[in-house]
């Protein structure tokens, strides 16, 4: 009886370990969420980023998250960025406000479109400091991102904002 009990417990433990290992390492949704989390961290501008080397290293890391022909639509005007190089150029031109800013993706919902393509729908939250008053500021936008698996890594192929409140 006791021996059987130990066997059952071992089986349950093995199943649990297998399940969590799969979720952590192999589940593509988990991998995409992890990738998006890293992208958000790379897009954040730390207040202490003072050296040019830090800045260039951060820009270089950005290449890993986008496909070379990435299409990004920005804002209500519908202006777009049509390549990874143009995107990195645009990010390089951002002027960091005092205190930097922090980017996070929240409420991320992943849909697998195929084994190598996926869509992510989320809220991009940017927190920082108001340059005039110094008070904490928050900006948030809904974003739909499409990703593709290239060279065993998930990269962003398109990104476009969704208007929560539609205005004429």
């Amino acid at each position: 009886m006791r021996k059987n009990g130990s066997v059952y417990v071992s089986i349950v433990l093995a199943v649990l370990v297998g399940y969590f290992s799969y979720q952590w390492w192999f589940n593509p949704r988990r991998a995409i969420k992890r990738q998006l989390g890293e992208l958000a961290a790379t897009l954040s501008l730390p207040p202490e980023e003072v050296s040019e080397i830090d800045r260039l290293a951060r820009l270089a890391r950005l290449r890993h998250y986008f496909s070379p022909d990435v299409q990004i639509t920005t804002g209500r005007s519908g202006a777009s960025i049509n390549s990874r190089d143009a995107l990195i150029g645009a990010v390089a031109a951002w002027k960091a406000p005092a205190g930097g800013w922090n980017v996070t993706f929240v409420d991320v919902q992943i849909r697998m479109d195929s084994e190598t393509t996926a869509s992510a729908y989320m809220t991009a939250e940017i927190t920082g400091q108001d340059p005039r008053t110094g008070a904490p500021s928050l900006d948030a936008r809904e974003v739909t991102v499409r990703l593709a698996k290239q060279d065993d890594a998930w990269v962003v192929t398109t990104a476009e904002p969704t208007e929560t409140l539609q205005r004429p």
Partner: protein
Amino acid sequence: MPRLVKTILFGSNPRLTAIRAGVLVVTAIVVFGYVLLPVRLTGISMEPTYTDGELNFANRLAFSWREPARGDVVAIRMAGPSVLYIKRVIGLPGEQIEIEMGVVKVNGEALLEPTVVRKAAWNLPALTLGPDEYFVIGDNRAMSMRNHDFGRATRDRIIGKLLF
């Protein structure tokens, strides 16, 4: 452990204390997870009714038995409930909304807005709301229209009504 400390920590009847603590935890999880969503307001778009940094709760059951009404201050979700817009409903499904020199007109008639203190000269051409759409806007109309997020919100995005 001294008896006094034991009594303070676990009460005179530890089993009953454990049951009380369990009920309290479950109640808190249900209330704050599914009924009252804690909200911290950021920004000035709802001033003077609500100020930057204020704490409040969105009652998620408020629209279970009735639809949002004009004047309700509602929580509107983005991709999920982590980031919300807090706005006032001024237009209901099917209505025509227009802003002329800061005056909101519903179906051509000026709307009385006691919560709006100052009005800048905002202009918005007339639009008709769809059968599932509400027009929401902040109370601070003294600010620039360009910096103020407002517009049509579909019913499924309105997740609750502010409690206070």
